[in-house]
């Protein structure tokens, strides 16, 4: 694909036109000598942490930022080293990245594509960031990923669950460690079958935007494969706060499972409303009515309070995991901040380490070298078991957790219990799976 990248000569040529047109002195930027955007100068390297600091996902953003700060500490050889000690790759030595001390800039995405791109651009254009990471929603992640592709820096996605991020909107410069809607469906389905049987009628309430649709599609496909029937799928406005008028019809629909394809505030409210309407106490044809929330987040679970108890869902990672990597991470995060990290914090921490490691192994900050180092990279010791960064779509393949809201939490953090660790083989799919079709990675773009 020549279309998605811009030849370096083209930039220089158009630059010359601009210079002549505006009669300004033409200096070639220092960066273009190195052959890629924002090649680190001196003995430091700048990373850009672009997270929601205002708006409804500000709490997730704050947790992500904590994880980033921790990762920077560990990369620079401060603190206890966290998962650096358990990471299967030993290229990182705790002396920064390639001997350059890691510095960072932060920005506020406001959970808006525009604001997120503006913030990322300022990091690239002003602060000289060579990698951008973060985000707590798919729209933002996709928007920033596209930007990084055009600008020629690496994007390490934070919390983004939509299939599109590594499906129709995948980009060569973008990488996602977090799991996605398809994986949620694939991981949940067997557990749903074993817990609730194969003869169920599901009613979907779906947030009426891209993420909601792909999520619903994935779950419906996975459950229908079990023999479940999808009775209805109702789209709810994003701005909805009271879901009572969507919940009420569920009672008479004959359905015996309610699937809430909601996230964030939507999820808290729809779940709260569903519980209020007594859905969980209902018996339909001798079967206990059940509610499923495919994507769980512990921070959101806290917002839902009591209502979360006994509800099944999936999550990327949970602090109660007992592998060495998770334990090391929880230990150093908990010691520093006094509470356990969220899955958003985990994925952001891991992404930072993975980037640094790829640079170290490649021996260069050049995005194309980083892409090459990450593509097809197999690693372990970062909390999700053996993991593969697949070359075809830059999606990580690893175990997925099926969790349930805990009935008797021992603390305010102890809200979810792991029901099953679904093995990686079960959530894998072909790169050209129809739910992910449509996009192309293109070629890596080193920028300037």
């Amino acid at each position, binding site marked *: 694909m020549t279309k998605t990248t811009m030849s370096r000569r083209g930039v220089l040529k158009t630059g010359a036109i601009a210079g002549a047109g505006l009669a300004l002195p033409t200096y070639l930027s220092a960066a273009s000598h190195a052959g890629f955007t924002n090649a680190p100068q001196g003995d430091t390297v700048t990373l850009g942490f672009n997270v929601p600091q*205002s708006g409804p996902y500000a*709490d997730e953003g704050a947790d992500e930022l904590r994880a980033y700060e921790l990762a920077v500490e560990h990369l620079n050889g401060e603190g206890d080293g966290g998962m650096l000690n358990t990471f299967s790759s030993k290229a990182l030595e705790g002396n920064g990245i390639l001997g350059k001390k890691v510095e960072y800039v932060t920005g506020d995405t406001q959970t808006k594509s525009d604001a997120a791109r503006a913030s990322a651009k300022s990091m690239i254009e002003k602060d000289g960031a060579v990698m951008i990471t973060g985000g707590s929603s798919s729209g933002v992640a996709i928007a920033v990923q596209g930007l990084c592709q055009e600008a020629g820096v690496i994007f390490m996605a934070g919390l983004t669950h939509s299939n599109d991020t590594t499906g129709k909107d995948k980009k060569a410069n973008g990488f996602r460690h977090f799991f996605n809607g398809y994986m949620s469906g694939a991981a949940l389905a067997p557990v749903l079958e074993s817990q609730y049987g194969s003869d169920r009628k599901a009613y979907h309430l779906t947030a009426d935007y891209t993420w909601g649709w792909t999520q619903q599609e994935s779950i419906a496909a996975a459950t229908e494969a079990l023999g479940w029937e999808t009775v209805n799928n109702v789209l709810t406005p994003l701005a909805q*706060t009271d879901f009572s*008028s969507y919940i*009420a*019809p569920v009672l008479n629909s004959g359905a015996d499972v309610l699937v809430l394809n909601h996230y964030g505030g939507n999820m808290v409210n729809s779940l*709260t*409303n569903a519980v*209020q309407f007594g859905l969980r106490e209902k018996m339909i044809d001798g079967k206990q009515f059940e509610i499923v929330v495919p994507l769980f987040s512990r921070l959101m679970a806290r917002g839902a309070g009591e209502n979360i108890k006994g509800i099944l869902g999936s999550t990327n990672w949970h602090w109660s995991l007992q592998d060495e990597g998770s334990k090391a991470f929880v*230990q150093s995060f908990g010691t520093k901040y006094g509470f356990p990290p969220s899955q958003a914090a985990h994925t952001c921490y891991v992404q930072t380490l993975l980037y640094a490691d790829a640079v170290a192994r490649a021996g260069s900050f050049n995005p194309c070298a980083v892409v090459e180092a990450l593509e097809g990279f197999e690693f372990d010791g970062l909390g999700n078991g053996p993991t593969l960064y697949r070359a075809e779509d830059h999606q990580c393949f690893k175990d997925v957790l099926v969790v349930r809201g805990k009935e008797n939490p021992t603390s305010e953090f102890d809200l979810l219990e792991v029901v099953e660790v679904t093995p990686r083989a079960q959530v894998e799919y072909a790169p050209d799976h129809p739910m992910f079709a449509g996009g192309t990675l293109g070629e890596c773009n080193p920028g300037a």
Partner: protein
Amino acid sequence: MDAIILQILNGLDKGSAYALIALGLTLIFGTLGVVNFAHGALFMIGAFCSVTLAKLLNLSFETVDPTQKDFLGNPLKVKTPYIESWFGPEVGATIIDWSVPLAILFAIPIMLVVGYVMERGLIKHFYKRPHADQILVTFGLAIVLQEIIKFYFGANPIQTPAPDALSGVASVGGAVGLNIAYPIWRLCYIAFSLLLIGGAFAFLQFTTFGMVVRAGMADRETVQLLGIDIDRRFTIMFGLAAAIAGLAGVMYGPINAPNYHMGMDFLVLSFVVVVVGGMGSLPGAVLAGFLLGILEAFASTTWATTTIPGINQIIIYLVAIIVLLTRPRGLMGKKGVMED
């Protein structure tokens, strides 16, 4: 049939919140002539009164339990609310359980003070300024208030559950052969709103204070000529309007967990409600609140969304546009209000 009645109940429920906020907005507008964009923020502050009370009741001391471990492997610190140690675990737990109804008592004085301070400190200086300025300054105030709340309580919603006794579902209409299960707290909310609305109307209708205020709404100058200090009363009305919004917020907590932007979520809608009802008309505000609530409930049904895709997203605005264009003064608006 059951489904229709369910949606009517849902509509009444939603409409209750709209009506209460719109009622306060209209009171403020009618008495003080001020368009208050910070009214949604008052609703939110009310809800956070109950969050605060719950936090206060849950103030705890810590004891170390060596038999249990926390997530870092250190001995677990067990928290016991003071209130449980003072009144015994059972009474204490009951008090905590009933924190939302208790918050009503807690919120009334707070909201009155908040309203009073807002009126004396800020709004007072805007009586003579254009409506646009009033909108702008209160819009700024709304931003400031919500950011303050966010700073102290975070961005994620915080649950304020209803007492156990009121949190199940009740069967409604069994006597007339209907089988409808509806959450008890939502029924409480409707009843509470009707009570509050009735109370507000009775207060304006039957007390001397209310009569003076109504006279003042109709003709401020004449009332002042009679030597009555109408400003003082209007200030109190502002406090009352704030209290109504606040109580609506307290009671709304168990329905949807309060978060910092709930005020803005309701603000736009309640302004639409006020305008549809007719600027300055109290019955209009209440009527429009319930009407739009019910319409919104029905627009969310599968039948409606399959007939016109996306109707649930736009119904309220659509109705507002149609009403304003066909009945320019709203459903029950008076002539000459806000027409310049």
